[in-house]
């Protein structure tokens, strides 16, 4: 067989290869536009517009969250350009944006579909960078995608404003200088839940963990174990479950006999909906163990997802980055303009994306340029307020936002289909803060800023 293939290799093949290489080396020169003029990649220069890239899941399991993110971005662009009621532009402080775009340029945007796959997300982001000339990519609804796109943006030389990503790694061992995260993380969820669980369930609990068997699940589990053992709880067992298991019965029945009195579900998305629904069906919440009522905890809540679990979320504690029922002026302004535009309240994914878009635009305005290295300087250590989470700081060491964290509970008597969660406690920032070199975050390096030229 090999004979057949190689029989004519020498003559024609080599000739052609030579010709092709010649063409390859000479050709790229035609196509590089503005390569020498710009000081940084995709410099809008004197153009009237600047383009942002909104990279959200439009197909796949998180398509609904992606849709909500896109709605928020479109709203943010309107507000930055001075259309609509302005939303959080009225409450954000300090603010340099004036409702006339950014640096006098009108903001336009392009969209893409991450499909919640690293490959597709990077392909989509590359299209935005290479073809559409964006200065910033933002969005996404999973940590795998966020980390993949963040490192791409670092290599390419544009800014990445992460969407919904909860893994410690995004601003831990996979942090990058060009990437920023407003969303909270697994460690913060654990730290915020600890005191609330102590207050409600005491110090003598025995917790059983079911954990999605991938990186986010593991970091969430580690964070929860750390914070529950800190309040005196024991850990009965930790069991990994395959992602997308569908039926969790074989993982839930062992809980019945384990002597545990608390079940912690380190699941997100469909896994969370299914495992919670099934755990409740198995009567876990009607059980009494060691004289205590059995309880379930879901460390990371998403209202959109919680709707899928129906009545089963009632009374179950979890944490969330933001909730539309918050009374502060920023949240109210955002909910009001989002509601007026689309007819329903925004999700936490929508909120974090909206805020990220505004923060980036504002940083560019302050920097006086879209050059990534300058924008990064503006965002690092930046303190702001009026964006729904109280006083917030983008920590310079790891590009993680530090702010209060919401502990929520499934509402017992919801007044509408959106009224699924109620805020139980706002855990102050000091309680969820950690050192940049904390062991759960160690091993990463922001590296240098990249302007892409």
């Amino acid at each position: 067989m090999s004979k057949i293939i190689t029989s004519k290799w020498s003559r024609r093949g080599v000739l052609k290869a030579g010709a092709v290489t010649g063409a390859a080396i000479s050709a790229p020169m035609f196509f590089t536009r503005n390569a020498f003029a710009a000081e940084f990649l995709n410099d809008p220069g004197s153009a009237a517009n600047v383009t942002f890239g909104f990279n959200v899941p439009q197909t796949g399991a998180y398509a609904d969250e992606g849709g909500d993110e896109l709605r928020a971005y479109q709203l943010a662009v309107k507000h930055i350009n001075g259309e609509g009621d302005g939303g959080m532009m009225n409450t954000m402080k300090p603010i340099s944006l004036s409702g006339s775009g950014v640096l006098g340029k009108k903001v336009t945007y392009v969209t893409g579909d991450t499909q919640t796959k690293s490959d597709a997300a990077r392909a989509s982001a590359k299209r935005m960078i290479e073809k559409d000339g964006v200065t910033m990519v933002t969005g996404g609804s999973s940590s795998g995608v966020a980390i993949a796109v963040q490192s791409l943006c670092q290599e390419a030389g544009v800014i990445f404003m992460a969407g919904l990503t909860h893994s410690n790694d995004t601003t831990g061992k996979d942090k990058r200088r060009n990437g920023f995260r407003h969303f909270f993380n697994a460690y913060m969820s654990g730290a915020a839940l600890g005191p609330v669980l102590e207050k409600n369930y005491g110090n003598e609990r025995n917790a059983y963990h079911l954990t999605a068997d991938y990186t986010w699940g593991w970091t969430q589990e580690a964070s929860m174990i750390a914070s529950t053992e800190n309040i005196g709880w024991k850990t009965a067992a930790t069991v990994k479950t395959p992602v997308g298991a569908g039926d969790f019965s074989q993982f839930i029945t062992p809980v019945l006999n384990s002597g545990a009195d608390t079940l912690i579900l380190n699941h997100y998305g469909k896994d969370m909906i299914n495992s919670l629904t099934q755990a409740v069906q198995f009567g876990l919440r009607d059980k009494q163990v060691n004289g205590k009522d059995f309880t379930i905890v879901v460390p990371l809540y998403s209202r959109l997802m919680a709707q899928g679990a129906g009545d089963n979320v009632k009374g179950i504690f979890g944490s969330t980055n933001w909730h539309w029922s918050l009374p502060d002026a920023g949240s109210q302004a955002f909910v009001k303009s989002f509601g007026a535009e689309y007819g329903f309240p925004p999700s936490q994914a929508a909120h974090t994306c909206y805020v990220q878009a505004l923060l980036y635009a504002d940083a560019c305005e302050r920097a006086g340029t879209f050059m990534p290295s300058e924008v990064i300087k503006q965002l690092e250590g930046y303190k702001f307020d009026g964006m729904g989470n109280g006083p917030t700081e983008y920590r310079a060491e790891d590009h993680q936002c530090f702010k209060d964290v919401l502990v929520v509970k499934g509402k017992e008597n919801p007044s509408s289909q959106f009224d699924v969660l109620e805020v139980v406690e706002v855990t102050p920032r000091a309680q969820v803060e950690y050192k940049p070199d904390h062991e759960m975050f160690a091993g990463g390096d922001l590296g240098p800023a990249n302007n892409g030229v």
Partner: protein
Amino acid sequence: MDAIFLQVLNGLDKGGAYALIALGLTLVFGTLGVVNFAHGALFMLGAFCAVSVQSILTISQKVRDESITFFEAYKEIPYLEIWWGETGSIIIDYAVPISIVVAIPVMLLIGLAMERGLIRHFYKRTHAEQILVTFGLAIVVQEIIKANFGANPIPVPAPDIVSGSANIGTWLGMSDTIVYPWWRLIYFVFSLTVIAAVFAFLQLTTFGMVVRAGMRNREMVGLLGIDIQRKFTIVFGLGAVVAGVAGAMYTPMLPPDYHMGMDFLVLSFVVVVVGGMGSLGGAVAAGFLLGLLQSFAAMNEIKSLIPGIDQIIIYLVAVIIILVRPRGLFGREGVMED
């Protein structure tokens, strides 16, 4: 001991569900010789019958919540409750059982339309082409569902009275920690009933006899002057109905989303292959076998011995069976063998 007993219970319960899901697939393959990659989509459509019935029953009068002014937050009161009071609430509560009754004709129609419109033209094409066209159909169907119902799972609760769990342990005089959800027990009984009904239909009726004869030798039956084509259309409809009711009944355990068909597709193929392509008894046996193996593989004691076994057990079984006994557990000799 209790743990093992519970895992056996889990295994049987899963097995019933797997058998039911795979039954239609193997039936269609056995009779029509068609490899239907859209079978998962039929399962998903059945589940969305339940979603639709629930949302039709809960069509609500919207009362504006005056306290919230900037978006449309309503207090929703279903018309059924307004008209019939308590009876209305009970009807809504029983949405899933009602949806079974609805799903049967709906799925039958979908199945007939699918066979007439598409599958029929692929009897003579290769298996590969059958796989491809039904795969394409599955994508189209699930995207249509997604466009109408969104991507997130939709909760469809079981009737209140069976939403809790049964104290099996106390019944059997064992530890009282052994409890099992009512709905899963119902699903188990339901799947056995449906399987028995399909068997009875094929074994005891003249129609079934002709179909079974057609499975053995299609040309011969045709030569005898029997309109085998028409019979096959009905068999396909039957397969669709079985998949559909399996899906509708499954909703309280697994809030359905548009992608659930694809999730179950690979699994149902494995069940069919392990049981023997075209063998109904094989599908049932394989369903139980895989259900039990999957339950035990999930136990920490076994996972610590072989890491990751719970992730691959199903596929491992399929590989071993195909290599060792390609006709499957109960497959007829010569079917799909080299």
